């Protein structure tokens, strides 16, 4: 009944033309637009470079790869903008972009730190944390915070998986990485990632398998399956020979 009433009231309002925005509503400063402009400007530069690459011959291409545009300036601008309103949606968009921008990894680490501090409640962190890499203190602390404090199960799972992947194989933190991957597989295994093409469980299990069974010096695990014609065979049928295992596709 309430809804109907308010709808009636709304539709009953006479047209007033453009409504002036009271200046109080513009505050606090909305940085979204400035963030989008900075990103769009860099994308334009980058796209121009990509177009040149596509048109270039192999020699020119080599030279062009030497002058790949870096996002360093754009990143600097974005950090300055984010600094004015770190908890805003504009800051979230800017920091997410920095995480995948062509610029030194320290920038992505700093961005991740700020995301963990100011945006730990955001559902968007699920995809963002998957881009994290490295084993710096900043990354470890940020991913640990997100895994613990996020209210979203998917974000928690992705942060756990991402940290596990980063730490697995690290001489100092390897054991912790392994434990995190096991946790990711057990508690978050069903969660779909990579646009639905995989799950946290599959990725975590694959990572553990690679680390435990597929290192140089280990006996290769057997593969049983069928060939392209549907005939069953095993990798171990070829024991005694040197085998080059080639994961390939005709593309």
């Amino acid at each position, binding site marked *: 009944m309430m809804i109907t009433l308010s709808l009636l009231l709304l539709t009953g309002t006479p047209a007033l033309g453009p409504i002036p925005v009271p200046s109080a509503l513009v505050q606090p400063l909305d940085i979204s637009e400035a963030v989008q402009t900075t990103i769009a400007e860099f994308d334009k530069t980058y796209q121009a470079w990509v177009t040149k690459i596509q048109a270039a011959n192999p020699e020119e291409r080599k030279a062009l790869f030497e002058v790949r545009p870096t996002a360093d300036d754009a990143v600097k601008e974005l950090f300055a903008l984010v600094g004015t309103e770190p908890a805003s949606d504009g800051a979230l968009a800017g920091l997410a972009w920095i995480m995948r921008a062509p610029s030194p990894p320290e920038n992505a680490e700093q961005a991740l730190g700020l995301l963990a501090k100011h945006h730990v409640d955001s559902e968007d962190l699920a995809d963002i944390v998957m881009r994290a890499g490295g084993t710096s203190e900043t990354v470890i602390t940020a991913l640990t915070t997100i895994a613990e404090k996020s209210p979203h199960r998917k974000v928690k799972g992705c942060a756990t998986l991402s940290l596990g992947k980063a730490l697995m194989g690290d001489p100092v933190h390897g054991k912790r990485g392994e434990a995190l991957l096991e946790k990711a597989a057990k508690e978050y295994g069903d969660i779909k990632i990579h646009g639905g093409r995989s799950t946290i469980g599959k990725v975590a299990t*694959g990572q553990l398998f690679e680390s435990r069974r597929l290192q140089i010096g280990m006996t290769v695990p057997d*593969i049983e399956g069928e060939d392209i*014609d549907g005939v069953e065979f095993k990798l171990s049928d070829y024991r*005694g020979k*040197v085998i*080059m295992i*080639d994961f*390939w596709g*005709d593309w």
Partner: protein
Amino acid sequence: MYPHERSLVSEYASRPFAIIGINSDKDRDTIKERIVEESITWRSFWNGGSTSGPISTAWNVRGWPTLYLIDHEGVIRHKGLRGEALEEALKELVPQAEAALKTGDR
């Protein structure tokens, strides 16, 4: 990739060396045609028609091609070798396999 693989196959023909592929193409009939066109003589596991198939998923493969080199005893000796480095590794490993065959030490 194919020309290099073909040359390895002919270089090591009748010696203890094999390429085993894990093919992640989508369509079986199309790849069968390509195998004929490209004279691909080595055998491949079928990865279920996807790069997210069971074998590549279990092996945590994230890039294509991904290569592993296994010695005659089944030990993983190299990962991701290409070109000359791959040929150097084979020059070392294949004679080891042959020596083992001779002494019957398998």
